[in-house]
């Protein structure tokens, strides 16, 4: 499975390298979300600081929708689902590879968003380990959910509009737990954020296990 995951992750990252969709479209989109929300909500620095933890996750979620939609669309072209079924690659390996490639792309987006909230919203990362683990755990969950529902929407003619409808409710707990943990890490709330990280980790495990188990049947249905 790990061998197959490596092959698929390498292929997906190569596809990104060749097309530059994440670099040229998703990254600027994520930054735009931060800027537009800042304009729309308030120019008051205190308000921006308070909403920064939540906006980070909203921007990352919207970026996930684009990246996961793109990742799924790549597999829909020219009979590729059939090609993957015939390839002999383990479906769980395909899931793991696609999710890993998505995690790596989203981590780049998260890094840029972190710079964005520091620059635009004037917040500082006060608990670096908590912040890093929160972002990492939340990103793994977003990627797992995006990969699962991307496969589910593969055979649909309304894939682009169906994917957000499926993903957003599924990741609502990630937004909640991620925002609460980030509030602590960014010094916008007191108390320990690690219990929220624990919840994030639990959700991540559930979705990764669900993806490993369900990707084969999902691929068969496309």
């Amino acid at each position, binding site marked *: 499975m790990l061998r197959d995951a490596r092959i698929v992750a390498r292929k997906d990252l190569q*596809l990104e390298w060749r097309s530059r969709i994440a670099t040229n479209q998703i990254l600027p989109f994520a930054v735009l979300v931060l800027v537009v929300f800042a304009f729309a909500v308030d120019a008051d620095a205190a308000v921006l600081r308070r909403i920064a933890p939540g906006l980070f996750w909203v921007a990352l979620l919207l970026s996930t929708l684009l990246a996961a939609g793109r990742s799924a669309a790549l597999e829909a*072209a020219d009979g590729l689902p059939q090609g993957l079924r*015939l*390839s002999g690659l383990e479906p769980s390996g395909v899931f793991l590879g696609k999710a890993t490639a998505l995690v790596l792309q989203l981590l780049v987006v998260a890094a840029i968003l972190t710079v964005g909230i520091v620059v635009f919203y004037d917040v500082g990362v006060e608990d670096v380990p908590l912040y890093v683990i929160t972002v990492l755990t939340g990103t793994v969950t977003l990627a797992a959910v995006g990969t699962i529902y991307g496969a589910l929407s593969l055979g649909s003619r309304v894939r682009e509009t169906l994917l957000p409808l499926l993903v957003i409710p599924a990741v609502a707990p990630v937004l909640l737990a991620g925002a609460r943990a980030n509030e602590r890490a960014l010094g916008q709330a007191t108390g320990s954020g690690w219990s929220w990280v624990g919840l994030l980790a639990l959700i991540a495990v559930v979705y990764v296990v669900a993806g490993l188990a369900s990707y084969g049947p999902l691929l068969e249905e496309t």
Partner: protein
Amino acid sequence: MSSVVELRGAVVLLGRFPALSGADLRVDEGEVVLTHGPNGAGKTTLLTLLAGLHPLAGGAGTVLGVDLATERRALRTVVGLLGHRTHLYDDLTVLDNARFWAAAVGAEELDARRALERVEVEPRLADVAVERLSAGQRRRVALAMLVVRRPRLWLLDEPHAGLDESGRDLLDVLVREAAGAGATVVLSSHELDRAVALADRAVLVNGGTISPSTVGGRLDVA
């Protein structure tokens, strides 16, 4: 001679539509069998059934000793299907695609390069994105991916379509070489002159059933 394909009353449903409705077929090891018939007769469904892509809704069958009713997924690594779609990633180069599909079946990059050379894909195309290739060039790359698999059963669905004259000649040579090396070939084609010259015998697929064919002046038993 041992049988590679043995279908007895095979039924395949596409949704509720019976694409095959009681198909009987026996193909022996090393044979080249042509399936022909009108559009929508069930030829593509027959080939994809033999590749393990459809469940049997009725009847029974084995391919390379694998029971289609219970173990069809095990078939996918030992058969090679060249269908209407090329299973290539548009944004990747020819060589990237070749590396990926070769790695998926456990072959080395050198094998992929040799296969591309064997199907006479020009070396200058190795670093060209697949989306820039002509239909015929794409078809040759897909053929190379079939060659790299070294399948025991070749399933060719309209294999001459999209190829130029030299490509068609090359395909015929590859089929003869494969059959000479002990592989079994089942192909469907509307180019009957060429296909009849290639095949040991022909069967007629019509209305989801398979019957003896007199194409090319021969009368053979399904």
